[in-house]
């Protein structure tokens, strides 16, 4: 395979530019105010940013673009020919269809996220969307004074690694890692907190030009999301697993909704997996402590002026018409004095979401016992093979270009999330002889948004993204319905249709209310840590599909019974996605597999199952079986999906675990 001197020519970035341009042109709506050139530049900038991020998933993107390059080859860039070829591919094999759909998603997101000279997304504005600063209440929103992290706590990726030995090394600074840092430093322990993502201090300073634009969807994906939001699940290439990757982790980019673990799940964990704490008062106390710090409160009181996702209005009227109004409740949220800008998923640039960045981490830093290593990925845990005692972590710069270093600790806690923690344990070769079921029993909550189109504009983007939930009998039904809405680029991912159909659906963006059933999956999936990067294999069961169908039916029912009545309801199916009161039951009932409907997830769970017996990776006290001084504390230890947003539960669990770890 030696091509030296033989004139080998690999496909280059020039080819890629032409490919991207052709795709943008093909998916750009007629009359779109964003030019093909501008959107192409934006797309290429995004791709360059993604490649520079050090993501191990770049490979997947490169492969997809190379294949798409062939699809548009020979068309001479002619728009009609490109569209015909893409449509032929889309109607072909599922594998190629997914590729064509990926091209559509990428191009559409870029088009609606491309900013004009004034910094506004003009294609999105053409849909009736306005950015927050252009809304009446968005003129000059104050950024509240926040406790900042002292800079001497932060060790950047190119800074030298001090040769210290910490009491505890915590890998991952998200919901679990930050709580652990706060509690452990509070117990007098020194803590090294390792985070693969970046720290973005400029987001606190409203005056600086470097401050990220609050509404810039692509920029925020690159800054705050793992793999820029493109972490694929390999068992289903249409499914991306959204996770945060920044200091603060997913707590920075979540929807700010907080749920306690449902009672039936607590019982299962205690009864079947030996997690006695799950049903104890201690867990409730931990929930309460976290609630106090994050000031968790019902959305109706946390958003003073009532700027909550307007979708709830329609759900409420539908529920009332059906006599189920008591099933619709405001979510508990960790926001305070919310402006209702609708940028929760974009890291709440106005700092109204109470995240670990404003609470736990400054508190930990104030003790003088915390050091935070950002932009460094943990490669492997150092485990002495004789006694399986953890002694530190090998880290390397996430973006590459630097040497590996060792951060030593007397205890190591893995809190890198359901995917990252499994991967790290799996990469730790010293653990291999223990034959732990690392990566097994992986589950997740998944959603499939339902849009109801109304005659007059709903402007569902104008308010807290997720404000209400609907639940009747969770153990019986297996789903919760949540309101949800996002800025146009992100929302486009949840709308059905191919080419002209999607464009037509996007044109009604301002007229939609949206809600989605959320289903906790069975635990048959897996994070396969043998590969680099780790592979997420999705294995869903028939009962998962049945729960989703029940949830879709109920959501449609609520919308169709709302006042005023919607013109139609859209589900994110591949075909037959436009529903009427006469058709929705038959069409949803006819869904035969997950191949027919788009789902997504931001709540991966499991992989390092907690169990008192050999089924698990960690014991109920969070220590890895058969090891010393090695713990896992995050959603990866969940033996089953909690079937609601897991954020609050992860934090409460970390609060409990800190006691075990500090005293061990």
């Amino acid at each position, binding site marked *: *395979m*030696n*091509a*030296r001197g*033989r*004139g*080998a*020519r*690999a*496909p280059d970035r020039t080819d890629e530019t032409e490919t991207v341009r052709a795709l943008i042109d093909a998916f750009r709506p007629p009359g779109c105010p964003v030019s093909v050139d501008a959107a192409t530049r934006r797309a290429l900038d995004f791709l360059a940013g993604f490649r520079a991020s050090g993501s*191990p998933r*770049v*490979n*997947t993107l*490169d*492969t997809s673009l*190379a*294949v798409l*390059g*062939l*699809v548009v*080859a*020979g*068309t001479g860039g002619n728009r009609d*020919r490109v569209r*015909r*070829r893409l449509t*032929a*591919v889309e109607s*072909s*094999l599922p*594998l*190629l269809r997914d*590729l064509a759909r990926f091209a559509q998603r990428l191009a559409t997101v870029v088009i609606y996220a491309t900013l004009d000279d004034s910094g506004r997304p003009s294609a999105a504005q053409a849909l009736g969307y306005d950015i927050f600063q252009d809304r009446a209440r968005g003129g000059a929103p104050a950024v509240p004074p926040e406790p900042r992290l002292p800079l001497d706590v932060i060790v950047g990726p190119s800074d030298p690694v001090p040769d210290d030995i910490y009491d505890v090394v915590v890998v991952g600074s998200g919901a679990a890692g930050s709580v652990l840092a706060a509690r452990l430093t509070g117990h007098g322990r020194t803590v090294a907190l390792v985070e693969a993502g970046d720290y973005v201090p400029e987001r606190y300073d409203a005056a600086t030009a470097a401050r990220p634009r609050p509404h810039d969807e692509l920029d925020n994906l690159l800054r705050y999301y793992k793999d820029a939001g493109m972490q694929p699940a*390999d068992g289903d290439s249409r499914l991306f697993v959204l996770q945060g990757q920044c200091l603060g982790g997913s707590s920075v980019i979540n929807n700010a909704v907080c749920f306690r673990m449902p009672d039936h799940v607590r019982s299962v964990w205690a009864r079947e997996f030996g997690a006695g704490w799950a049903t104890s008062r201690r867990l409730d106390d931990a929930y309460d402590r976290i609630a106090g710090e994050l000031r968790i409160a019902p959305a109706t009181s946390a958003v003073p002026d009532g700027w909550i996702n307007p979708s709830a209005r329609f759900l409420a009227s539908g529920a009332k018409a059906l006599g189920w109004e008591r099933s619709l409740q405001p979510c508990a949220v960790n926001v305070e004095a919310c402006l209702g800008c609708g940028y929760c998923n974009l890291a709440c640039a106005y700092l109204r979401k109470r995240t670990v960045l404003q609470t736990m981490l400054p508190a930990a830093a104030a003790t003088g016992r915390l050091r935070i290593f950002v932009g460094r990925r943990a*490669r492997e845990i150092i485990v002495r093979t004789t006694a399986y005692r953890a002694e530190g972590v090998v880290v*390397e710069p996430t973006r590459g270009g630097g040497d590996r270093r060792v951060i030593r600790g007397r205890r190591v806690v893995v809190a890198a999330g359901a995917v990252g923690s499994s991967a790290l344990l799996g990469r730790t070769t010293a653990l291999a002889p223990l034959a732990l079921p690392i990566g097994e029993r992986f589950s997740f909550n998944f959603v499939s948004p339902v849009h109801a189109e109304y005659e007059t504009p709903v402007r569902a983007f104008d308010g807290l993204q997720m404000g209400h939930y609907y639940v009747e009998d969770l153990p019986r039904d297996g789903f919760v319905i949540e309101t949800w809405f996002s800025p146009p680029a992100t929302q486009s991912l949840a709308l059905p249709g191919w080419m002209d159909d999607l464009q037509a659906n996007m044109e009604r963006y301002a007229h939609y209310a949206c809600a989605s059933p959320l289903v906790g999956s069975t635990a048959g999936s897996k994070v*396969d840590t*043998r*590969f*680099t990067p780790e*592979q997420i*294999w999705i294995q869903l069961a028939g009962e998962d599909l049945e729960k989703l169908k029940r949830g879709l039916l109920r959501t449609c029912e609520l919308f169709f019974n709302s006042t005023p009545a919607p013109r139609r309801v859209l589900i994110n199916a591949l075909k037959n996605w436009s529903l009427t009161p006469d058709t929705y039951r038959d069409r949803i009932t006819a869904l035969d597999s997950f191949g027919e409907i788009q789902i997504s997830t931001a709540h991966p769970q499991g992989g390092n199952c907690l169990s008192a017996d050999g089924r698990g990776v960690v014991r109920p006290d969070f220590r890895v079986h058969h090891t010393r001084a090695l713990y896992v504390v995050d959603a990866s230890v969940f033996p089953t999906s909690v079937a609601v947003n897991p954020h609050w539960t992860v934090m409460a669990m970390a609060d409990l675990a800190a006691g075990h770890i500090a005293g061990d």
Partner: protein
Amino acid sequence: MTEGVGQGVSVTAPGRDDASLSRRRFLAQGLGGITVLGLGGWAASRPRRPRRGIRVDVLSRVFNGQDLQLASFLIGVVAPGRPDHAALIRAGANVAQALAWALAPSGATETWRLDELARRRGPGLATSDDREILRDREEADRRFLEALRVMLPGTEFFRLYLDGLLSGARATLGRVAAARLARMAGVSVLGRDEVDFLLGPEGPERALLSIRPLHAFRRYTYYRYLSVRELFEATGGAPGGVDLPGGVDLVVPTVAGFDGRLGSRATPTPPGDQLLAMARLVTLCGGRLHPLVPFDQCRQTDGRDSLALVQDAVERRGFVGVTLSSPLGQGNASADGSLRALLAWCAREEVAVVAEPEPEAWSRLLAFHPGLRLGVRRGGLEGSPPRGSGLMYGIDWIRRSIQGEVSDLLRRDGPVLGDDAVAFLGLRKGRRTRERLERFYDRHRITAPAWMLALDEPGTGRGIPGPERPTV
């Protein structure tokens, strides 16, 4: 994808007849007509002792299109070797790559598939029921044909391809077929019947082209295991394979090595994942497949140290040697150090190294690593290596793609290269490689394969020198 299938049959045998078995005889003895899948098995778990010497194929390559930068490979390596078809190959390079990268199973996917087969069928994949495997092949073909329909039209490759067919179509296939081909030039999507026509057994590609690009492209989209299975079918012929004249007892393939020289892009399947898939295949082949693992001193692989990857493959996963593309660290001190560490380890552990023909550079390095088992591909080298150089000529890699079926390659003439592979690899009892394999078989509950039993029979094979005196 297998490449160079059966081209070198390295023989150690009591009788020189077998030892000098020519390629022509090999084919004449009944293996030229290959039944693709279906009949015999591969890698049967119940060994049969061969009634003649051991045959070791050291020239095959096993990979699919996900494992390398296929377009650059076709342009830079394959096309120059076929100047008569270079334009067509170059034009088809991106088509082949796109098809392979879109359709071929990744290393991870293949590992999962093999895990699944092993769970259901047990180790060895003994072959009373091949329906499931046949379905994989049929599904791969179906997907390939379906993809061709939408991805071929409009490409420069397809234009040249049709031109090539049309020039002889009328005379060979008749007016109707020629007109049918001419119509294809203008369509944006090919019909299923048109694709079937192009690739059919009596179709124009077979009838009119001396190379068969679409057949070749199809092979790049297969599971690797299907190609290995076909390789065994072709070179073994029956369960166990070893009783038939000309059967190959042990295949020691190379996998797609580091292709950094082909371009800067990563391949869809990184080298580490490719090795995992191959390792799974090794366990399922019951001792008849033991690959060589590639090493590149200039690159880290998937964030892992190259040496660690090699050591893992050799010590735990049934690989029996290392392939090196260059003896040089390209001026990079770290790479030089990494290479020295590998060679020192290989010398100490008696791990065979197969390398590019740069004998002078190797001779210099060998001075520092006495006892290293080093085979360089023969390439243009003639005769014997310099006395005292420690080099061994005779392991070669033939860089030719299968144009369609394995049988195509077997029908070609080619040099019979390779000698004393058993000694070179250290497969005899008491050698380190052999001990590693025995441990590997124990761990995976693999019965000692036929080649091993035969080697242990008194009087089998020649006296094989150890690493102190590499065989020429």
